[in-house]
């Protein structure tokens, strides 16, 4: 469905994506993760055909998305800057949606809007930040596009609405499986929902793997310095910290035998992503030395 090969995007002199390669062949829910400014939105815009790549190539349904009608009709990108015609009310926007997206679930969209308590008489411009995000997400979900790209869809929503919207995504996905790529800073919040993680870091794909694999990638070990230090020679170390009398380290989980006197625990996927993309310039503690 989506293929990226050595995809590159430069804005003027600054290189956002330098060499992005990955392939997605089947409908699933994917979490797009990465630090601020790493190019998550840029990647989604390239896939949606809203931006033109500056190198490499990207294909959606076997076609280059930029200026491709077939791609535009089957891909929706939901982002907070989305604009709708300012003269229309929400009701009119939803009623016209089927003209652009033949599978548009008009009834579902109205039901969801009523449920979250947003009046269909509003204009899009009048909505609060949170309401705008809710409406955009409802619109995106209702298009039932084969490729649904959600860029930080939950930004600005309160916690209760977020939980409801995650549930709505899951329910509609089960009923109508499609490829959903969702970017977020809050991996932990959506860990239950996603099947694969696509992690961007420094312009490339740092990791593209099933969630369960990511959860098993790293271990936190805590114990005495004499016990921990010899272990660290045998594996890749993501992080270590000595807080006398204890020594803590985050290491790659490669089946290394950990002595029973050392406490070990696997990390959550969001912690693994955090350590994989952490600054190489030390930790925040170093600034306050």
């Amino acid at each position, binding site marked *: 469905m989506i293929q990226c090969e050595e995809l590159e995007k430069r804005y003027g002199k600054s290189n956002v994506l330098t060499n992005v390669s990955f392939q997605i062949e089947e409908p699933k*829910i994917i979490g797009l993760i990465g630090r601020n400014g790493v190019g998550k939105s840029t990647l989604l815009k390239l896939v949606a055909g809203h931006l033109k790549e500056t190198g490499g190539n990207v294909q959606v349904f076997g076609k280059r998305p930029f200026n491709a009608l077939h791609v535009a009709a089957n891909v929706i990108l939901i982002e907070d800057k989305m604009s709708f015609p300012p003269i229309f009310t929400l009701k009119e926007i939803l009623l016209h949606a089927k003209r652009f997206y033949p599978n548009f679930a008009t009834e579902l969209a109205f039901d969801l809007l009523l449920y979250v308590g947003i009046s269909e008489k509003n204009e899009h411009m009048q909505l609060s930040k949170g309401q705008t995000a809710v409406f955009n997400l409802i619109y995106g979900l209702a298009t039932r596009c084969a490729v649904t790209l959600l860029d930080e869809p939950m930004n600005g929503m309160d916690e209760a609405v977020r939980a409801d919207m995650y549930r709505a995504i*899951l329910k509609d996905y*089960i009923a109508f499986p499609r490829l959903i790529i969702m970017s977020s800073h809050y991996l932990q919040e959506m860990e*239950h*929902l*996603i099947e694969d993680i696509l992690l961007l870091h420094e312009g490339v794909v740092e990791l593209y793997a099933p969630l*369960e694999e990511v959860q098993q990638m790293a271990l936190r070990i805590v114990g005495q310095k004499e016990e921990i230090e010899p272990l660290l020679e045998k594996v890749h170390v993501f992080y270590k910290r000595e807080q006398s009398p204890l020594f803590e380290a985050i290491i790659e989980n490669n089946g290394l035998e950990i002595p029973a006197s050392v406490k070990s625990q*696997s990390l959550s996927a969001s912690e693994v992503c955090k350590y994989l993309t952490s600054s190489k310039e030390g930790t925040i503690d170093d600034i306050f030395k």
Partner: protein
Amino acid sequence: MDFNAQSTTPIYIQIAEWLENEILAVRLLPEGKVYSQYQLAEIFNINPATAGKGLTILVENEILFKKRGLGMFVVADAKERILATRRNHNLTKMAQEIVHEAKRLAVSDEELITLIKQIQKEG
């Protein structure tokens, strides 16, 4: 639901354990049909693929079996199988803890074995 996305136990293992508990509680019957991965996804609010992985482990462990086109079913002696595995697993874990504690307290092997034998006699 007694399931926790923040736990360090992967969700699909928690799903497998939940299904095992349902079998032990006889809420899922021998030879009976089990929830589909989509039903589990809705019940626990998780990705259907994750739920599917939970079912797959139980098929691998011969607790469930697949009937083509009909779904997953509980093996006739599933309950006994679960109990046997858990017994082995839990007992091994406890024995490990006892051995470590004994080491910490400088209790010798002979003393430990004598202690266990004595408890067995009293029990």
